[in-house]
């Protein structure tokens, strides 16, 4: 994602010193992207303006009636809940992940890579199994509930814990990368010139690593919005995200047009955040960070 920020800008003069790459190198990814990403997206878009005819069948027309149905207090509530939970989850992930990444980048040397490995290793285990493992920890018969009185399985708190736990490594990695590139002598210089440690952190470290924090934050926020398994397993099927509602609409109701309209609406809502990110990233670039 960081590559987006450093894209080469066209120059005004006719001469370019940018290295030339053969264009066909982009072909495999372009093909893959068109067939397996844009293709399904196009199908989804076509479905979303069609209408349901019979069970699980689609009558191709152009109608915005599906989107009119999305504007319903039930779906608005679920959208709000999803965005709120994902935002809270992302902020918690930042609160937990940033100090850890900071500590690793600044104070570890020999064991830095080992620490990184420890963070990545859980990622090698299936997402599903990790979520189930969490269910055992949060179980009302488990230590947490029995000895500490924290009985939160099948509540939104369990869903929140699940979100942070599953997406933490996705946040730590980009932030660690930007902290790694930090020139710590800047901090020394600031301290020598009389800045208090917190001021130095706030004005230098935080500002320089902000792109990493935003990238990492979005990297966890967006999949959190699309979460399906975690609310299902840890919320007991009664703390619904948009993903679950979409699943019911495709599955139980076999209503593909409406399910597609819900999916597109979610994507539209998320695009707002991506636009904010791109604006943020370009601004950073202008500052030359």
């Amino acid at each position, binding site marked *: 994602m960081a590559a987006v920020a450093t894209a080469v800008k066209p120059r005004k003069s006719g001469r370019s010193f940018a290295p030339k790459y053969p264009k066909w190198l982009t072909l495999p990814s372009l093909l893959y992207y068109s067939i397996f990403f844009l293709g399904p997206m196009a199908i989804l878009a076509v479905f979303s303006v069609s209408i349901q*005819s019979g069970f699980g*069948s689609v009558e191709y027309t152009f109608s915005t009636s599906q989107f009119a149905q999305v504007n319903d207090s039930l779906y608005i509530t679920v959208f709000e809940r999803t965005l709120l939970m994902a935002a809270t989850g992302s902020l918690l992930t930042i609160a937990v992940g940033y100090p850890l990444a900071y500590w690793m980048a600044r104070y570890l040397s020999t064991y830095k890579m080992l620490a990184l490995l420890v963070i990545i290793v859980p990622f090698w285990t299936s997402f*599903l199994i990790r979520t*189930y493992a969490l269910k055992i920890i949060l179980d009302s*018969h488990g230590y947490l509930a029995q000895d500490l009185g924290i009985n939160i399985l099948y509540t939104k708190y369990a869903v929140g814990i699940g979100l942070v736990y599953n997406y933490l490594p996705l946040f730590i990695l980009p932030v660690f990368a930007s902290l790694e590139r930090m020139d710590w002598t800047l901090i020394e210089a600031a301290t020598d010139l009389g800045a208090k440690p917190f001021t130095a952190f706030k004005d230098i470290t935080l500002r320089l690593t902000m792109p990493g924090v935003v990238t990492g934050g979005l990297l966890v926020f967006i999949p959190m919005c699309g979460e399906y398994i975690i609310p299902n397993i840890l919320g007991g099927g009664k703390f619904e995200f948009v993903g679950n509602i979409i699943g*019911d609409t495709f599955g*139980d109701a076999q209503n593909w047009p409406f399910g597609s309209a819900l999916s597109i609406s979610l994507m539209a809502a998320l695009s707002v955040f991506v636009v904010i990110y791109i604006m943020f990233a370009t601004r950073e670039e202008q500052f030359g960070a």
Partner: protein
Amino acid sequence: MKDDRNEHLNILAPRSMRPKFDYLHREVQDLAGMRVNRRAALGIGGLALLAAACGGSTNAGGGGGGAASQPADALKGKPLEDQLVIYNWSEYDDPSTYKKFEELPAESAAGLKTHETYYSSNDELLAKLHAGGTGYDIVVPSQNAVGELIQEGGLMKLDFNLIPNIKNLDPKFRKASFDPTGEFHVIKDFGITMFFYQNTVVKPSTEPKTMKDFYNLLNANVSKGRTNVLDGAEEVVPLAAMALGYSANTDDQAELDDTQKFLLSIRKGVTTISSFGYINDASAGKIILSQGWNGDVRRILKARKKEGDITAVLPTEKSEVWADSWCVPATAPHPVAAHAWINWLLEPTTAVTEMEYHSYPIPIPAALDQMPAETKNDPIFNVPSTYTDNYEYILNPNPQLVNARTKIYQQFKAA
């Protein structure tokens, strides 16, 4: 099909962790739609469904055909094919049933080989067929999917001249509300929806008898432990409607509104809405009050035999009866073999093997007689008709009702 379900995984851990790992293993198997609960319809099935939805977009709605007009003896004199492609729930039939079928005289002379692929929910089956999935000779839809497929002309009229063993089937099960003429399906097995509670924790003042009694226990007991209702729009809404005395398939707006109001009133008494994993959790004593399918409840009772703390209730008055059926898609490439297969499954000895394998009753009296007494006489296995006479099949009469149910269900869950 390569069977990789029995792969071993070696984990170095203290022996005391064993029960935890076993639990985890069961949970994951469950979620993967393995044999623990046949009707588990979630997660993985959903993904496959989406894949099917995307893949077949151009053919969506093309599943219909002129099946209804075909003469009843169209297959007369046609030779037995050498292939049979079955699309089924996973691990729903005894492996020996396939082997012995291939070894039958006519089948082995034709060199017939069976192939089987699996689905984990009716939605997945329907999506596959709607998306133009052809090449299947046998499918095993539940009652609502049978009704839907008949409506769409997706099923072949069966030629009962090729299924002489139909005489073995209890005549009461030949026709059903989802196939009024009985021409499109042969019942495979059936079950009902009941409820159970942990009698050491839930102590009702009067003995609960009906599904309404079950719902009324929820709010008062939720603080004592986990309560659960079965998942899915076609389960939650019709079951509640029936508890209120309405038809399972009511599309009367006032009755649906009433059902929604009732569901919302008991919502705070519900800890989980789940149809999978409840067997394990209840067997571990972690569920105090829940709905359940009879085959699953039997399993829970067996697991809690030592503690003896589960009271299982077959509801008097209305509840759900469901059935899975053998059907032949209108596009089946090997219809004669499909009929031979259905005929073989109606053989009493086959039915006994099958019932021992999946532990759901098959309404073949000659086979039920051969079952061990403790199974045959267990009302939770062989549910007496004094109960089932009041029960209804939950169907999908039209897309509007299914949409309305789904919305009530979503409102119930999101409340």
